[in-house]
């Protein structure tokens, strides 16, 4: 690859002169508007800074975020949906409503499982919580699943206690490398290897000059040995479960240096031990690493760093307290969210935050060293709470609280985007009841805002999930040969794009529902269909859920008056 050519090509991209003029013109406009606002502000000393900044920023296409409006939009989206599907139901004259399903949903919206819920038609990726090192350096996807009996080179001693590296083969690490390794794997001393000295490797990864071997002992214990040009890393852990729900925990980690000659021997040995073939390995594994927190004084730890630090990351809604794990892509988005917080945060007194747990969206990271919570409280601010669990000499626990205005969209976008990659885990807790509990009688609101057609797919899909809840999807799955494509007229479609994949759910007039995933394939070099499943759907089920939602009563909160 000629990178100079790339550079020359890219440098030809320049800003068009008319665009430059437009931007400069808008800058002067913003400055003038700011000056006018400042004068007005001087005359009205009590004007709120928030209103002021929104006014100034409004010149620049920037629409200040208002969660109320978004939620109202969601309601409107739901109204459109209700209308569309309700009319479909009317025209189709399907079966009568199914109060049984509807009432069970209303009674306990958190109790359903993936078998009876929306998780079936959109069965997102299994949550993967693999750290950067293994995902990127070890190229997990290129693993081999074959029984390979591995013997380590002579220089790595095999003792009764396990595999050990003789001291004379350890070399000193420079400080930077130590920090780097510590960041990834912690600073535990190497204490030996509990496994057999020679063990069956069931997973083997090769990536450039690094190898990862995985061995399993029975059904509950695993070992990883990663060998790179400069070091050997040992990880030991256990896992529970034997299927997609398996959770794995790392119990210890150690590392040591390897001499160049030893690495060459190892490399030759691996090359001779068999061919590598692709095998997906990562979906079953969750590694939660432990790394001591990096010094003091860091007031905000990024989610990505926290993830590397071996945290248990999950999110929950205050209303239901139901947790769900987040995948790698969700964590990256969360990282961005927290970065935004760090840029915009203004410290406040914890007592200022009214936190009652109802309707709040909480994302929490915790491990042995710290407990960090980011909570979207009601509609105007996020609370960021960081508790360093390492006690000070005086026994106190460090605690910080910040209040941030107007950035709840960041967290919300995480939740919304997250649905695309991890729908079945993320969707169940976000339901219409959550919105209704805060915004009163849904029927009144839907009527009030039915003309608002601003529809956001992500939110619409979340709402849709509530309406589809409780349907027996698997029982109603259709074979592709049963589907009469010609008579399938789409009446409603929701599409979400997430990274390289489009998730699409389409309702047809004849009662079909199609769930489809398409995305770019590097192997094929083109967009390909990744999943395409058809179901027969009884709209009466949805009508029952809608009726149930509309009958739910709650007092409208004060905020509605202000936003309406």
């Amino acid at each position, binding site marked *: *690859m000629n990178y100079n050519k790339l550079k020359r090509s890219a440098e030809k*991209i320049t800003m068009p002169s008319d665009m430059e003029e437009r931007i400069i013109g*808008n800058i002067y406009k913003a400055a003038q508007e700011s000056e006018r606002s400042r004068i007005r502000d001087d005359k009205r000393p009590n004007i709120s800074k928030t209103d002021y900044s929104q006014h100034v920023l409004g010149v620049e296409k920037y629409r200040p975020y208002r969660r109320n409006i978004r939620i109202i939009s969601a309601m409107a989206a739901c109204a459109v949906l209700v209308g569309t599907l309700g009319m479909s139901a009317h025209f189709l004259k399907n079966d009568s409503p199914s109060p049984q399903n509807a009432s069970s949903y209303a009674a306990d919206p958190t109790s359903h499982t993936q078998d009876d819920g929306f998780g079936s038609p959109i069965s997102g990726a299994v949550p993967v919580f693999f750290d950067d090192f293994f995902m*990127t350096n070890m190229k997990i996807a290129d693993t081999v699943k074959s029984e390979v009996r591995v013997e380590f080179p002579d220089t790595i001693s095999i003792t009764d206690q396990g595999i050990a590296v003789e001291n004379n083969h350890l070399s000193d690490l420079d400080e930077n490398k130590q920090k780097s390794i510590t960041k990834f794997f912690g600073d535990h001393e190497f204490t030996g290897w509990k496994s057999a000295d020679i063990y069956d490797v069931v997973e083997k990864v090769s990536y450039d000059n690094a190898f990862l071997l995985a061995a399993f002992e029975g059904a509950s214990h695993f070992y990883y040995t990663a060998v790179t040009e400069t070091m050997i890393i040992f990880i030991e852990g256990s896992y529970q479960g034997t299927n997609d729900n398996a959770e794995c925990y790392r119990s210890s980690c150690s590392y040591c240096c390897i001499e160049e000659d030893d690495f060459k021997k190892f490399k030759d040995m691996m090359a001779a031990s068999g061919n590598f073939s692709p095998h997906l390995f990562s979906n079953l594994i969750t590694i939660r690493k432990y790394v001591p927190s990096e010094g003091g004084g860091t007031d905000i730890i*990024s989610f990505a760093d926290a993830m590397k630090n071996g945290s248990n990351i999950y999110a929950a809604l205050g209303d239901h307290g139901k947790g769900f794990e987040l995948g790698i892509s969700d964590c990256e988005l969360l990282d961005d969210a927290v970065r935004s917080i760090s840029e915009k945060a203004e410290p406040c007194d914890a007592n200022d935050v009214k936190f009652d747990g109802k309707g709040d969206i909480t994302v929490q990271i915790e491990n042995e060293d710290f407990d960090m919570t980011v909570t979207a409280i009601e509609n105007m601010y996020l609370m960021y709470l960081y508790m360093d669990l390492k006690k000070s000499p005086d026994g106190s626990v460090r605690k910080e609280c910040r209040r941030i205005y107007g950035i709840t969209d960041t967290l919300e976008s995480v939740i919304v985007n997250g649905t695309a990659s991890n729908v079945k885990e993320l969707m169940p807790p976000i339901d219409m009841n959550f919105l209704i509990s805060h915004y009163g009688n849904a029927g009144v609101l839907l009527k009030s805002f039915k003309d608002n057609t601003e529809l956001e797919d992500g939110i619409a899909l979340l709402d849709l999930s509530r309406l589809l809840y409780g349907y027996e999807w698997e029982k109603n799955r259709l074979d592709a040969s049963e589907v009469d494509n010609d008579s399938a007229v789409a009446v409603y479609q929701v599409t979400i794009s997430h990274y390289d994949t489009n998730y699409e759910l389409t309702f047809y007039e004849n009662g079909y529902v199609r769930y489809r995933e398409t995305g770019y394939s590097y192997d094929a070099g083109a967009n390909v269909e990744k999943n395409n499943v058809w179901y027969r759907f009884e709209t009466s089920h949805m009508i029952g859920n809608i009726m149930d939602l509309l009958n739910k009563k709650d007092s409208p909160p004060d905020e509605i008056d202000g936003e309406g």
Partner: protein
Amino acid sequence: MKKGADILIDPDITANAVRTYGSILYRICILMLKNQADAEDAVQDTFITYMQKAPDFKSSEHEKAWLIKVATNKSRDLLRKRTRFHDESEEILESIAAEEESTDALEALMTLPEKFRIVMMLHYVEGYKVEEIAKMIKRSASAVKMRLQKGRGLLKEAYRKEFVQHELQ
């Protein structure tokens, strides 16, 4: 962070910054967003932030790096918020295609996922070092190295599939 959104830098200075750094930021934003209107929005928002925050720059390099960092953040915000968009990669490539040289390497770059695209762009086009990129995108240097490493692999693969195979055919 300064409260409010007062304009703290003389708009003339900001306008000069647009003329000096506008193309660099536009290039970065358009490679991230693959859409000219979105790129324009991101660049404009970047300079508005510049005018409002009035950071105390130590040098012109510091100023440039700050602007790139803000522009990448603005672009990411846009990427997160939009649910559908028109991919204008072809139009962009056509508009810059020179007679004497093809844009196939750039075309291959534009097929990479965003997180690889930005580090490849900053390193190979803008010439930033790994540590500098790490500060800009708030990732560790090792994470940037990994992305560069994987990005190179993906770029080669994309280039090979898109162009070498076609040439062979």
